[in-house]
């Protein structure tokens, strides 16, 4: 009997299975965009046929980090900025797990920026959802890496002198093989993009715009969205790196002027995922590592076979 019967189980999955019992109730503020991410995930997971027990959600710290408190899968709520290294290793340890990492813009693009770049570079087969509300929420309204230039907060009272980070361009340049932006107020698109990201075999980065009604009232999140795939004005090939880069630049240029474009920007289907690359050079076993510990017939090498070279 496999140690992981929940993995690959085929049955009808009810959305409610992803909702914990009575406790805990979300502590997000009324009107918070984070509800949108939770809802879209709960819709997407059954549709891609994932049972709650074969999904591992790994989160960082902040309002976004509470996602897996309200989503009843296996979960690991880690520490500020560190969701990606934990998620990467879980996927390497058991590639059959569906690993979804999530965090906020401060968490993922600020303190976790280094991990973000390297996870994208290596193209780990995980989905990464960044709740981008352009503000530090849970620490009460400080300027974040995506806050617009001139943004005033208690820690930058004269207005931020910094140009905001460009998440889409950054992940494309770092090597992500799937890059999209969606928004909490656009739930149908969000669900479709999450489904695609989960099914994508490689690092799928979703910059998920989530309005913060408490600390970032001025943000552009309430402006109507334009879906770049639906609009005739934006015709480009999502498989073409140069066209995608151009579109991302345009989107990121106008974001803070009140125009919000969402949709999929880059999809690279033929790039092997990190574990495939690692397998190709002989550094990744055929069977999931984690399974061997429950396999009574597994042959465990003994170190003293290595002693010969020391005698």
């Amino acid at each position, binding site marked *: 009997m496999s140690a992981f019967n929940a993995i690959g189980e085929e049955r009808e999955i009810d959305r409610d299975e992803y909702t*914990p019992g009575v*406790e805990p109730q979300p502590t997000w503020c009324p009107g918070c965009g984070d509800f949108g991410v939770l809802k879209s995930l709960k819709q997407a997971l059954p549709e891609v046929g994932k049972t709650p027990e074969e999904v*591992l959600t790994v989160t960082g710290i902040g309002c976004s980090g509470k996602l897996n408190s309200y989503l009843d899968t296996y979960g690991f709520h880690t*520490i500020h900025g560190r969701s990606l290294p934990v998620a990467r290793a879980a996927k390497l*340890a058991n590639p059959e797990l569906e690993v979804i990492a999530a965090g906020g813009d401060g968490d993922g693009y600020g303190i976790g920026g280094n991990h973000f770049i390297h996870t994208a570079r290596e193209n780990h087969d995980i989905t990464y959802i960044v709740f981008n509300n352009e503000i530090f929420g849970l620490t009460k309204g400080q300027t974040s890496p995506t806050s617009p230039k001139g943004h005033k907060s208690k820690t930058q009272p004269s207005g931020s002198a910094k140009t905001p980070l460009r998440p889409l361009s950054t992940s494309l340049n770092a090597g992500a093989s799937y890059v999209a932006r969606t928004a909490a107020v656009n739930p149908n698109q969000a669900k479709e993009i999450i489904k695609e990201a989960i099914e994508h075999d490689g690092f799928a980065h979703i910059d998920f715009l989530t309005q913060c009604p408490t600390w970032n009232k001025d943000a552009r999140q309430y402006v109507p969205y334009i879906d770049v795939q639906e609009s005739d004005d934006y015709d480009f090939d999502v498989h073409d790196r140069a066209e995608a880069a151009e579109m991302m630049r345009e989107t990121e240029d106008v974001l803070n002027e009140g125009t919000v474009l969402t949709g999929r920007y880059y999809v690279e289907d033929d790039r092997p995922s990190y574990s495939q690359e690692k397998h190709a050079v002989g550094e990744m076993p055929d069977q999931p590592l984690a399974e061997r510990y429950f396999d009574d017939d597994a042959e465990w090498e003994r170190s003293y076979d290595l002693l010969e070279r020391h005698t």
Partner: protein
Amino acid sequence: MSDDELIWRIAGGSGDGIDSTSQNFAKALMRSGLDVFTHRHYPSRIRGGHTYVEIRAADREVQSRGDGYNFLLSLGDSFARNPQEEAYYGNEEIKPLSENLDELREGGIIVYDEGLIDEEDVEAINLEERAEENDWHVFPMDLRGLAKEHGREVMRNTAGVGVTAALLDMELEHIEDLMSDAMGGEILEANLEILHEAYDTVNEEYDFEHDLRAPEGSHDTEQALLSGSNAIAYAAIDAGCRFIAGYPMTPWTDVFTILSQNFPDMGGVSEQVEDEIAAAALAVGASHAGVKAMSGSSGGGFALMSEPLGLAEMTETPVVLVESMRAGPSTGMPTKPEQADLEHVLYTSQGDSQRVVFAPGNIEEAYEQTRLAFDIAWDYQIPAIVIYDQKLSGENENVDVEFFDREPSPDLGSTLTEDELAEAAHDNSGKFKRFNYDDAENGVAPRSIPGQKGGRYLATGNEHSPVGHISEDPDNRVAQMERRIEKLESIRAELDEERDSTQTYFGPEDADYGIVTWGSSQGAVAEAIERLNENGHSVKGISVSDMMPFAEREVTEFLESVDEAMVVEMNATAQFRGLIQKELGRFGDKMTSLLKFNGNPFEPAEIVEGYEVNLADEDRQPTAQVRIEPAAGD
């Protein structure tokens, strides 16, 4: 100081092949039946500079580098780049000769490569005069010329080994065997020619007046020459560890490299990642997903692991971290040993620490305690740290091969199967009570692995309820804290009662003076104690390995049984003595410290002298390199 031992020092520039040559020569001595112990000294640069390896060999157990040495093979620094006298590094070609003379014993032998070291430079250091004063026997040989003639000049190391063998009256058999194992074809032939010609030249052209000969010995069982890093890496393999993540940093890199090279063949995964925060976080992630995992670093990198270490504690994710100390603070002296990260390892990370720390003192202990670290970590779902240093990491010692003949243990400890999960406690919504405190035995609440049916829960670094929901409920907080703290007490009880002691004792039980040490200073302390007792003193020693939970009972018993004690450690602030006082709350007036922090490990003679100075209550320091820190109230 014994005359029945050889301490052979090979000196050159980094990059001159000093390491590989000494490794082979040490093995040849081991194969000839001797016990061997190596000591590696090198600068923090890739090529050039003064580097040496010492091999101590005797027909009895050798536990430290010894005091000084009696045979110098000085190859000259072929990467010397600053021949001008006024340059910062000075005249480097001769450094391997000039820098080593202070520690050469009376009556010792010097072989130097006159093909590389200029005669004028030798005159400038008054070698002849000093040799006369110290009764040194000096053999200038054109090793480079000889090597060049038969092959390439890099083979001058082989010529040096040939000269050594001849001067010590050794057979060439084991050296030849090792060369054949390592190389073949024309290279082997050239090396063998050089070896023999060097050997014959010495025998034919020189009269020996010196008394030093290679000791003779025999082993009852097959021996292996291993470093502390080998022992730790092999212990991890036997413990079932199949995932390692790391970032290179001296001297931790040794363990990381050994496992990275072996894991692909045994179905394990090694990851070199962007930084040490990531490295430890990866180990935590892999462990969470059901693989025995480890990470590690040296002091500076371990500082970055503070966060994921705390996360592992709070989420009760088993993981083994290795901390290989080097001299600090900050980047300190990258290639020099020190035992000054003890407090860093014990207390880093916020909150009430729940971790296990072992400090092995020799190669066998490095193996055993690393295995123990994995067992304890997975049984109790707690991070376990193995702290050792650059000295133990890089030194080689022969170990009985039979010592390793034991079963691998890929057991995940207190992890449930799906059948067991079906019987386990769940909440109303079907969530597994992974952090259940109601019936936790020894504080341990068994866990599930993601992907198992019926095991769904949330792991979080926040305080949490039994199913893992974030909770600030005071009753839950107290129950969870008490359960986690109970684990450490249970581990202490297990170490005390069920496991063989991980503390090591030396000297007669009824001695009235005690020496207390930890980690890699053990060997030098052991030898010093032997010598002191031979000289009529009454001294015993304890080398402590259990740092957290602390070996309370054993250290208390030891200190109660002596009138006075000296705590020997390689740091400037007496960290271990401080730990004893903190843990036991007494003995402050009984313990003097003997401290060394100049980048070199203790030699037994320094400890002997420290003891004598301390006992005589003299108002002086033992040597320029060692400090005495008096007991409280003195």
